């Protein structure tokens, strides 16, 4: 955290190297988190980019005593949820018969995981990603998504019930 504070401070003073270090430390997880929620590589890239641009925009006002990652992840996840909801709605309107009729071929475990996540509503995907990829506590997730903690817990429970088969098959 001390290193991060130093990097934020230096970036606030105009250091391009400090900004690049911050970017390098946080891009990967932010991008992956967005991808796991939206399941679209281009959208995930846009969302992660937008979050970092918002960070640059707000850099001068950023309170260095606070950790950088939760602030960034909050933007990423909320935008990813918005995008996934909108996309789901668009598919419903534009492609009513888009469900595959045939049994899909056997897939690699990463694809199976993505398929299993795709079966979840975006809100449940988001809490799974926040809890099990980014490792936030339910209380922290509740604050990030502005939800009651009970809602976070119930979304997590429902999501894990539905993911159980995929995860157990991988064990």
């Amino acid at each position, binding site marked *: 955290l001390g290193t991060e504070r130093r990097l934020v401070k230096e970036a606030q003073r105009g250091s391009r190297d400090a900004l690049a270090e911050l970017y*390098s430390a946080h891009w990967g997880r932010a991008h992956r988190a967005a991808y796991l929620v939206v399941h679209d590589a281009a959208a995930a890239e*846009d969302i992660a980019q937008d979050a*970092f641009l918002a960070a*640059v925009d707000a850099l001068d006002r950023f309170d260095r005593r606070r950790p950088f990652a939760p602030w960034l992840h909050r933007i990423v996840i909320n935008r990813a949820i918005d995008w996934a909801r909108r996309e789901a709605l668009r598919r419903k309107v534009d492609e009513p018969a888009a469900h595959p009729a045939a049994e899909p071929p056997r897939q690699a475990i990463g694809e199976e995981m993505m398929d299993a996540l795709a079966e979840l509503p975006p809100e449940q995907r988001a809490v799974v990603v926040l809890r099990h990829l980014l490792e936030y506590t339910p209380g922290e997730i509740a604050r990030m998504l502005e939800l009651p903690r009970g809602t976070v817990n119930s979304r997590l429970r429902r999501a894990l019930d539905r993911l159980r088969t995929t995860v*157990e098959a991988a064990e």
Partner: protein
Amino acid sequence: MRETRLRSLLAEVPVPAAEEAERRGLSMVEEAFAQRQPAGRAVLPRLAVSFAIAALLAALMLTPAGAAMRDWIGDVFTAGVPDAEPGLTEIPGGGGLLVQSPSGPWVVQGDGSRRLLGRYEDATWSPRGLFVAAASGHALSAIAPDGTPRWSLSATGPVSDPRWSPSGFQITYRAGSSLHVVAGDGTGDAAIARGVEPLPPAWSPQGLALLAYVASGGELRIADSNRGEVLGSAAALSGIETLEWAVDGSALLEASPAALRLREVTVRKALAGLGIGPPRPVPLPPGATVRAAALSPDGATIAVLLLFGGAGERPPHSEVALIERPRTSLRRLLNVPGPLSDLAWSPDGSRLLVSWRDADQWLFIPTDGRGRVRAIDGIAAEFAPGDPGASSFPQIEGWCCR
């Protein structure tokens, strides 16, 4: 199910073209970073520039030519524009005005005739001027310009800042701190956001169901007005008082007393995505406070009312100026002692209307800088019939439609 296994599965899912995406992202972020002005570094140069300009102005004021300029600022319009017209007999530039007085909103027709609509506040024109939407306590009403009420709805909180969408199909308003959208016929009222700042939202001008507003906490959001989904967000200008969308949809104007800035907005096909660009500050003269800002009907020009505080022996004075986009050079149209308020473009963009309360005048200012400023005297009494000594000055709410 073991959580550690789930964690590793999530971490192992391959993200397509991750390295290329990271490189592209870094290049975008570095570009945005290069364009910002680091607060810590900019202080000294800005102060130095301010001192240099102050010194230059002081020197100018002491020279004969400078004395002439001081006289012009201080004397020419001391008690209002000379040769002001004694009453409102027409609206220079045409169209209709919506004017809020203590007794309610007035509709002023092009020939100067006017009608009081009733006990309403926060009135706003429909896009073609066929109706007015206005607030009254916890009620939102649509009224014909002849004063006939068309419909009214009860809200859950005090209604404020209604704004009609450019398509005419929707009206947004605040009920307490919630942002609502209702169809133009008064049906389908729904809250689309909670906890919003007390600032009039801005509709997308292109007929899209998009609404820009500022959420409490200072987040500028662009949302789908049908569902309330937030499609894009960014940090709003601190202390923001004006939010406007350029008519081509390409930019948002944010104004606060201390700053003015533009942001590019990109709407992807079928609302599949929306990008809000980094803020581009619009330079202001040193010592200026922005009292009002408004985009011209063609979106190419920003009009600003600037107030310069009375430092030293100089009394406060105001300037009306134009800033052309994308260049940001300032073209001054008018300079008067004391504060100006309200700022409205004529529908054809040929004039600006501003209020000069100290002089009890409205000023119609040609925007090409060539014609004569037309001043109308006795405005307070015009909107307080039966009270010739009226002390309250009406507020200009809108100038609509040729």
